[in-house]
């Protein structure tokens, strides 16, 4: 599907979501509680069949945390962006999609490690790069004690 077709298809299918054409991709923002169900539908429906997550990014938006999934369908060769925001910023939690897309399991671990986003039902949520007890460096209020980033 082209971006326009994808845009109209998604608008008809997901009434609760906020869908718009971004700079490059179609962007769909869903509510946190709908995330898992949406992910399953995007992957399992034949028309969309988004089976490949090529990027998963956590962002600290000051009032809450955002998670951005860049997904692609290998069958149809179309790409879209799925976005979700957590309710809380200090103890953010969101449902995992690692049972839908396996690779998300490791990208979610990275988001947990660097931003402290807790993924519910994740089977192996451990720190990936840093030690237990280290802060969450990609949060905007992280104190850079050894001043390696900002001088």
């Amino acid at each position: 599907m082209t971006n326009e077709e994808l845009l109209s298809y998604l608008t008809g299918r997901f009434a609760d979501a906020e869908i718009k054409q971004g700079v490059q991709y179609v962007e769909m923002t869903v509510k946190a509680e709908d995330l898992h169900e949406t992910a399953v539908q995007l992957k399992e429906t034949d028309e969309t069949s988004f089976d490949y997550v090529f990027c998963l990014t956590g962002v600290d938006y000051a009032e809450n945390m955002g998670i951005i999934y860049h997904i692609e369908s290998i069958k149809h060769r179309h790409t879209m962006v799925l976005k979700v925001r957590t309710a809380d910023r200090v103890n953010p939690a969101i449902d995992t999609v690692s049972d839908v897309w396996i690779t998300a399991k490791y990208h979610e671990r990275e988001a947990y490690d660097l931003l402290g986003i807790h993924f519910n039902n994740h089977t192996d949520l451990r720190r990936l790069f840093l030690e237990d007890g280290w802060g969450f460096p990609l949060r905007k209020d992280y104190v850079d004690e050894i001043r390696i980033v900002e001088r």
Partner: protein
Amino acid sequence: MSEIREVIINSDRLATDEYLVNMGPQHPSTHGVLRLLVRLEGEKVLNIQPHSGYIHSGIEKMCEAISYPQIIHLTDRMDYLSAHMNNEAVALCVENALQVEVPDRVKYIRTIMDELARLASHQLWWCVFGMDLGALTTFFYGLRDREHILDIFEETCGARMTVSYNTPGGLMFDIHPNFQKRVKDFIKYFRTKLPEYDRLLSGNVILRERTEGIGHLSLSDAIAYGVTGPSGRASGFSCDMRKHQPYSAYPFVKFNEILDNRCDTFARYDVRIKEMYESLNIIEQLIDNIPEGDYAVKMKGVLKLPEGEFYQRVESARGEFGVFIVSDGKKNPYRVKFRSPGFSNLFALNKMTKGHKIADLVAIMSTLDLIIPDIDR
């Protein structure tokens, strides 16, 4: 005698308990500081847990404090063998965000440099792949040829590996007057040397025995784990960004995306060897046709990206490399994410190695062509 052998192989009495072995962080076959926690039963691998982060350098955090042209210099340090592709990804992302169109000359030079970097990377991979399997000769042959490319890089931009040749809007400097001649000499030279690689290693009986049918990764698994690059294409996963999202001068050249359906360690080996021939073809199509013009467009002193989110995908030597920039309109980004190919590829290792011998683990890991700073960032 043969009866005794039979007993040793099939007897339950000799079964050993499961045990754990740490492979790394200082193990020659991990090619860097990576620790694999391997659960073994005898020599059979039951499970692998990769532990990374030994050289986590917080590049994404550092990017938030510096300007866009400066970020390019950090991306060299991630996948140092695909340094030029990483630079290009950031440069393209910033150019797209600012809607700057670079001259054709820049596109051509960038693509030639991309392919030279890919060749150099595959050559080094071939060296160490042979070495991991105990064939030290390949190391000398591969490095001998790679030296020619590094010399071209040095003459072009002053650095051999961390090139930082790209800048938003074009290139740091124009090519050296010798560039075209040297590249053409190199292609002529390497066309005679590349068949040597096949003669030395590809047909070797020991290599075939140790690679064919080992480390199977099915197409669906490759997609599910996001294994891209030559490793993904060896499972039939058509994931070449040069074909699917053409950038720079790739729309102007004819080349084949190398796909293989054998899905095993040898397929991953074979895809890389064939890709080297393709890279030579691409350079040959471009090297004589570099258009005249500027090597960069004039950009503002301080680059400020418009508010929004920008993504750029390029094909690095080990897979799909992505740059995701979230901008709030200031001179430094609000958030930068690098989608590194090695990160996704690493976690498919457990799937591929299960049930094989520990010696095969080394061969399988070697064909994934992992670069550790690329994983840890």
